[in-house]
């Protein structure tokens, strides 16, 4: 069975739209393929016709790992569909709602010279109200730029211009979007495909689809990427080949002076540009790894001493240079960083290596690298493999923490005595109060974690705020770095037990014994509330099987549909060596 992620490697914008739509239609007709991936009920509410978009949307969602079931409201009825209590949208009970308005829906455009800020506030308020009502994750297309400008060059910059109103409203919506809402930037999408294609006035009069067919794959891909980012299916790590990917030529044959890299030559500049882009990804939290067929010491020399290199060894969390098979090396990278293969993206100029990795590791996204190095950035950027809808402190510190993790993994494999090694890292844990500074991250880690997670229960930011005293959020640091908030448990008192509704922990801190220390803190919480035990609901999934092995170690035993434990932890539980400090 073909993995949906591998169905289409090329960016949809570079393929004829008819071909993509045809493939999508065939895909949707095949129920077996449709059943692959994480089930997702999607409601699509739009102010224009989406009949041509629907199949391609389902197809693009499948490429992102979702088995989507789509329900569509009649177009032009976004607000009514949302506000209709007991109506068909409620019956459908979507897991996610897609909102696709257009600039035609803007109703508060001020007169020339009017109060533009006030108008934008009124416009945004209608949509934030809908987000509140929906109370499920929302992906919304922002307002698109209109195709005409009655105010000419001033249309985008003075009160009364429709383009000015579009821009102001979009900015405001973006700043007001809560954790569960992701916006897709229509201004950028329209610029990318060109306004000539974004607006198809003839098609709009014929069937109320406002854009040309060329837009369908691009829009569907952007919506699916945003959904993946919002629901935690974005990828996390970029694995890079070296020769002819980061620089021109073979370092092993040509040596430091012989490789093509640097702004002095056209080709050398292309590689610099690609490295700058990769560096920018790293700075926003994408983890970098190297997978190259080279001698390790030689592969490292450009990083250490070539003036044209933008990337440094410090940027690389895991460096694999040897002559082994690349699929095996990529597996080892995933193991070292404790990431699933579905979190990886692989860039290699060599089509044979790409084909091999695709065949061996269909979960890995293998970028279809063009022959021309100057187009590398576009190829990687077009994949939108690392969708981001919120930039948290953890995103910014993630690359560092994976580097630290790789170092810890190396030393653990070197066979050091575990207890003294862990203690030597000076691990510290802080109970983090739920508040403005931590709320986004708490909701994010609950949504994004897949491996260390008891069950699929999700929590909105509102619910976490309301239950803040019963939420245990833990920050972890050691002498290598501060990992941020890496573990969260949401609890409530149920009879004489403290019930753990859900408990998640970031895979970056696995094997640091945080789970044991967290268990002790939960027991303290239980004791303070007069409880005599702990209980939880564990629902096994293909990803969270490690919980099954862990629960008995924490003293939990099955009791009916639940798992329960006495407050006192088992004698056999390992000592964590983690120091607890107050926030």
């Amino acid at each position, binding site marked *: 069975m073909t993995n949906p992620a591998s169905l289409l490697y090329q960016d949809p914008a570079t393929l004829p739209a*008819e071909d993509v739509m*045809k493939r999508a*239609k*065939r895909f949707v007709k095949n129920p077996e393929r449709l059943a692959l991936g994480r089930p997702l009920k999607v409601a699509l509410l739009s102010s224009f016709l989406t*009949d*041509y978009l629907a199949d391609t949307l389902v197809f693009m969602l499948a490429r992102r790992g979702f088995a989507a079931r789509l329900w569509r409201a009649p177009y032009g009825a976004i607000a009514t569909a949302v506000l209709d209590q007991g109506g068909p949208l409620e019956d459908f009970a979507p897991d996610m709602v897609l909102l696709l308005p257009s600039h035609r829906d803007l109703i508060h455009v001020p007169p020339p010279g009017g109060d533009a800020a006030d108008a934008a506030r009124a416009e945004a308020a209608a949509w934030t109200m809908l987000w509140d009502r929906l109370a499920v994750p929302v992906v919304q297309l922002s307002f698109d730029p209109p195709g005409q400008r009655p105010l000419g060059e001033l249309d985008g910059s003075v009160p009364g211009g429709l383009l000015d109103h579009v821009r102001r409203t979009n900015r405001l919506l973006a700043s007001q979007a809560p954790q569960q809402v992701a916006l897709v930037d229509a201004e950028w999408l329209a610029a990318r495909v060109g306004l000539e294609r974004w607006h198809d006035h003839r*098609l709009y009069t*014929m*069937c109320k689809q406002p854009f040309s*067919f060329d837009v369908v794959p691009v829009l569907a891909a952007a919506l699916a990427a945003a959904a993946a980012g919002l629901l935690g299916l974005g990828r996390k790590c970029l694995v890079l080949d070296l020769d002819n990917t980061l620089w021109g030529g073979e370092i092993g044959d040509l040596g430091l002076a012989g490789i093509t890299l640097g702004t002095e030559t056209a080709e050398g500049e292309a590689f610099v540009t690609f490295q700058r882009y990769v560096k920018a990804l790293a700075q926003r939290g994408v983890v970098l790894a190297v997978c190259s067929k080279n001698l390790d010491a030689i592969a490292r020399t450009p990083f250490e001493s070539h003036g044209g290199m933008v990337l440094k060894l410090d940027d690389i969390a895991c460096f694999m240079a040897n002559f082994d098979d690349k699929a095996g090396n990529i597996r080892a990278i995933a193991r070292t960083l404790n990431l699933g293969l579905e979190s990886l993206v692989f860039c290699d100029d060599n089509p044979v290596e790409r084909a091999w990795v695709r065949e061996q590791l269909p979960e890995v996204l293998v970028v279809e690298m063009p022959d021309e190095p100057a187009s590398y950035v576009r190829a990687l950027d077009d994949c939108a493999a690392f969708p981001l809808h919120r930039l948290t402190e953890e995103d910014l510190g993630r690359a560092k923490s994976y580097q630290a993790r790789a170092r810890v993994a190396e030393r653990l494999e070197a066979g050091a005595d575990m207890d003294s090694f862990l203690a030597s890292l000076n691990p510290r844990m802080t109970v983090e109060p739920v508040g403005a500074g931590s709320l986004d991250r708490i909701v994010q880690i609950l949504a994004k974690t897949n491996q260390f997670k008891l069950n699929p229960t999700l929590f909105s930011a509102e619910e976490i705020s309301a239950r803040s005293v019963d939420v245990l959020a833990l920050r972890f640091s050691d002498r290598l770095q501060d990992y941020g908030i890496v573990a969260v448990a949401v609890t409530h008192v149920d009879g004489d037990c403290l019930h753990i509704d859900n408990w998640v922990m970031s895979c970056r801190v696995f094997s640091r014994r945080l789970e044991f220390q967290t268990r002790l803190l939960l027991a303290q919480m239980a004791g303070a509330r007069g409880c005599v035990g702990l209980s939880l609901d564990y629902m096994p999934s293909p990803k969270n099987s490690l919980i099954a092995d862990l629960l008995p170690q924490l003293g939990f035993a099955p009791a009916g549909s639940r798992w329960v434990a006495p407050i006192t932890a088992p004698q056999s539980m390992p000592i964590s060596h983690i120091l607890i400090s107050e926030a």
Partner: protein
Amino acid sequence: MTNDDILSRLTDVFRDVFDDEAIILTRETTADDIEEWDSLNQIKLILACEKAYGIKLRPRDINTLANVGEMVDHLATIIAR
């Protein structure tokens, strides 16, 4: 371009739009003969014809045609212009 040439190319257009290589058009074929020939696919057909013959069509002219034969004749007059 003869009417036979137009019909032959139109068959390719239909096969492409409906993603069905088994489609065989005659002058007598109507929308009832092709299961997925609805108003949405009609629009796709119009746009695909414009591309295939390098012409511009008026949707309301096409929508009044009774069968493929009339469509071929209509295309012939537009192409001849």
